[in-house]
């Protein structure tokens, strides 16, 4: 009898006001039920505790209503624990009465927490809360509507809610129930996209229905897409043994599926030109979303197959983003990757930390080191701070040479070698000690190049090539032709042999070295030394009785930069009889934030 009364009361637990009425109505029977409860055997709470909770809530919030299992303290905790917390809070809210829920939402709105909470859930939740509110509460309804009454959710027209585009997957599955062609398309889509279509379709439908937020959708699609690319890559590279290579196993991709994908790829050879970029648009970016006819479905199925076919055709090296989904050691096996993999990288993956990866000495007098740097955009090899990235330098040198020139052919081969190594390091296909080994090979080539072009001590291989190959010198113009040009105080090289100090210098287009006094008057600048004309090099030099101690390019009027002025300045001082010029040149750049010239460091 008492147990029955307990059960009856249990259903009123979230309604403290009604509970208070029952307490008055039951009189002494209330006390009997209230004191008999024991943890684990009865309700786990006493009716009086429920009423006390409601009274406490009234003291805190100023309102007393049926709030179900809601409490502000619990809500605060839930709100702090992310998406799942927001889901729990939603459940708490829905456990109360309409009036109680309205009171809670009003409280949250005033505390500035309502929108934060709503944005952690898909818009469907805001719509549900909105529709469950009683008449009135315009302020809360406006806040709730701001979440779902927009384009991309339910549209701005309350009378005619926007119809949500269903995913290709959902439509094809419906179609598959009615027709053989639909069934075939469903299978082909699933197989041809290595299961991605199904995952993507589910995610897309969830977003369309407002069950997940846009951020959750983007993140999940990115991971699904990248994993798919990794699986497909391994399948193509390993002949279908994707299961072994994918981290944690590939539940959705088996040997048969991978092999079938190959078959699909072959079957759709005629549409291979559709390419991976189109597939990306359909499956990831959504720019080709909203298929509406069976023809579209078939086209998409073929695109799905084209992903498989495309991999074998555009293999270039597994990208960084997809490689993280692969098991250790599988990267090298799957090195034959496709452009889709790198395209999918754009979806968003944590990059490797930038910085120096490895370095190897280039064995020439004066020493240079060949370094590999990880950058946001990939891997760069650097030899000389004045020459910049090795690949860029090889390309620019090649372009200056006639197509049939054997040096150009050789530089072209080196370019391919460096390009391939950079990509392999970037993808992880070459890592650890192997990087040192590969760098050492290229360093040897650079040593050889330096030697063949009679490189000087401290001169890098590229500077040696530029000098000995007689490549055109770069000229630099006065950037301020309206500035007055005066008569400089100059020193002849003979006089400078016995002097020490800091001086301005220019090398004219006739390769004449002019050295003069530094002064902040007309006559004391580089344009005065050059008579306002173009120069091959300009900067400051510190001399000590015939020896070049320091040499740079700090000239605001000409801003010379790069290897050409470096080489020309060093040569000019050497030819004028100064000692130690080669290798002393330092490339500087103007730092506007610090208002000074600073050394250009090797990145």
């Amino acid at each position: 009898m008492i147990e029955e009364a307990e059960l009856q009361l249990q259903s009123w637990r979230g309604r403290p006001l009604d509970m208070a009425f029952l307490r008055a109505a039951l009189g002494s029977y209330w006390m009997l039920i209230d004191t008999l409860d024991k943890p684990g055997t009865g309700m786990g709470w006493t009716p009086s505790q429920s009423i006390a909770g409601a009274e406490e809530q009234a003291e805190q919030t100023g309102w007393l209503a049926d709030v179900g299992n809601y409490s502000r303290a619990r809500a605060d905790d839930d709100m702090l624990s992310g998406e799942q917390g927001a889901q729990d809070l939603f459940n708490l809210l829905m456990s109360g009465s309409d009036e109680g829920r309205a009171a809670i939402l009003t409280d949250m709105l005033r505390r500035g927490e309502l929108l934060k909470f709503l944005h952690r859930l898909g818009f469907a939740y805001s719509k549900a809360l909105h529709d469950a509110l009683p008449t009135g509460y315009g302020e809360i309804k406006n806040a709730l509507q701001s979440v779902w009454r927009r384009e991309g959710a339910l549209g701005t027209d309350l009378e005619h809610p926007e119809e949500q585009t269903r995913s290709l997957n959902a439509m094809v599955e419906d179609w598959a129930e009615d027709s053989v062609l639909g069934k075939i398309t469903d299978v082909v889509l699933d197989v041809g996209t290595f299961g991605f279509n199904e995952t993507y379709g589910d995610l897309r439908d969830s977003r369309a229905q407002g069950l997940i937020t846009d951020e959750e959708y983007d993140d999940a699609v990115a991971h699904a897409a990248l994993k798919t690319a990794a699986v497909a890559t391994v399948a193509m590279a390993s002949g279908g043994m994707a299961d072994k290579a994918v981290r944690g196993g590939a539940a959705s991709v088996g040997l048969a599926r991978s092999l079938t994908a190959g078959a699909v790829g072959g079957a759709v050879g005629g549409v291979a030109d559709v390419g991976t970029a189109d597939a990306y648009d359909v499956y990831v970016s959504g720019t080709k979303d909203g298929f509406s006819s069976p023809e579209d479905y078939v086209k998409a199925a073929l695109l799905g197959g084209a992903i498989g076919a495309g991999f074998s055709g555009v293999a270039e090296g597994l990208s960084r983003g997809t490689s993280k989904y692969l098991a250790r050691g599988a990267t090298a096996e799957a090195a034959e990757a496709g452009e889709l993999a790198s395209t999918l990288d754009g979806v968003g993956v944590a990059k490797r930390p930038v910085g120096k990866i490895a370095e190897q000495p280039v064995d020439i007098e004066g020493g240079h080191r060949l370094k590999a740097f990880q950058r946001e955009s990939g891997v760069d090899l650097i030899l000389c701070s004045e020459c910049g990235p090795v690949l860029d330098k090889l390309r620019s040198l090649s372009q200056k040479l006639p197509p049939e020139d054997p040096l150009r052919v050789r530089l072209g081969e080196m370019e391919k070698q460096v390009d391939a190594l950079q990509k392999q390091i970037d993808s992880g296909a070459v890592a650890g000690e192997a990087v040192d080994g590969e760098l050492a090979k290229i360093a040897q080539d650079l040593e050889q190049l330096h030697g063949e072009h009679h490189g000087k001590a401290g001169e890098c291989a590229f500077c040696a090539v530029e000098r000995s190959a007689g490549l055109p010198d770069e000229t630099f113009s006065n950037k301020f032709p309206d500035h007055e040009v005066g008569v400089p105080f100059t020193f002849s090289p003979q006089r400078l042999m016995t002097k020490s100090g800091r001086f301005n210098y220019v090398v004219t287009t006739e390769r004449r070295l002019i050295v003069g006094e530094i002064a902040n008057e007309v006559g004391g600048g580089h344009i005065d030394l050059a008579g306002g004309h173009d120069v091959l090099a300009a900067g400051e030099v510190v001399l000590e009785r015939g020896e070049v101690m320091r040499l740079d390019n700090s000239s605001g009027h000409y801003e010379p930069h790069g290897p050409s002025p470096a080489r020309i300045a060093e040569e000019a001082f050497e030819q004028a009889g100064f000692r130690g010029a080669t290798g002393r040149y330092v490339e500087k750049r103007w730092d506007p934030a610090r208002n000074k010239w600073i050394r250009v460091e090797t990145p």
Partner: protein
Amino acid sequence: MTPSVLDEFQELARQSLRASRSDDDSESSMSDVLELALRNPGSRPLLADAFLAVLGVGGRDRIEGAAELVPYCMRTLRWAEVRTQLEAELTTSVSANDWRAVAVLNHALAAFEDTWEDATRYARYREAE
């Protein structure tokens, strides 16, 4: 106002410029200017203004002298009022793309920093730094 100190400064500054343009040792005359400043702490405002006049800072009438006289002496003196005016002048010069002035002011201000690249050029500072 101690005209004799200013006169002495002007004469030594001129000598520094002559030395820098000849084969003479310019450090000797610059060192004399520095000693003058150290011997006359009460003339600091006057001498601070004189140092700035060597570089023509703030439109001052120029005192003939080697541009390197200012960093050489300020390396020891570290007069904040000189530094402040040099920094203000540098900002103005950068805005005006006056690269001749920028170079000279950069070198003068470098002497106020912890590490001074030009220290090795002078006997007074070579060993100390």
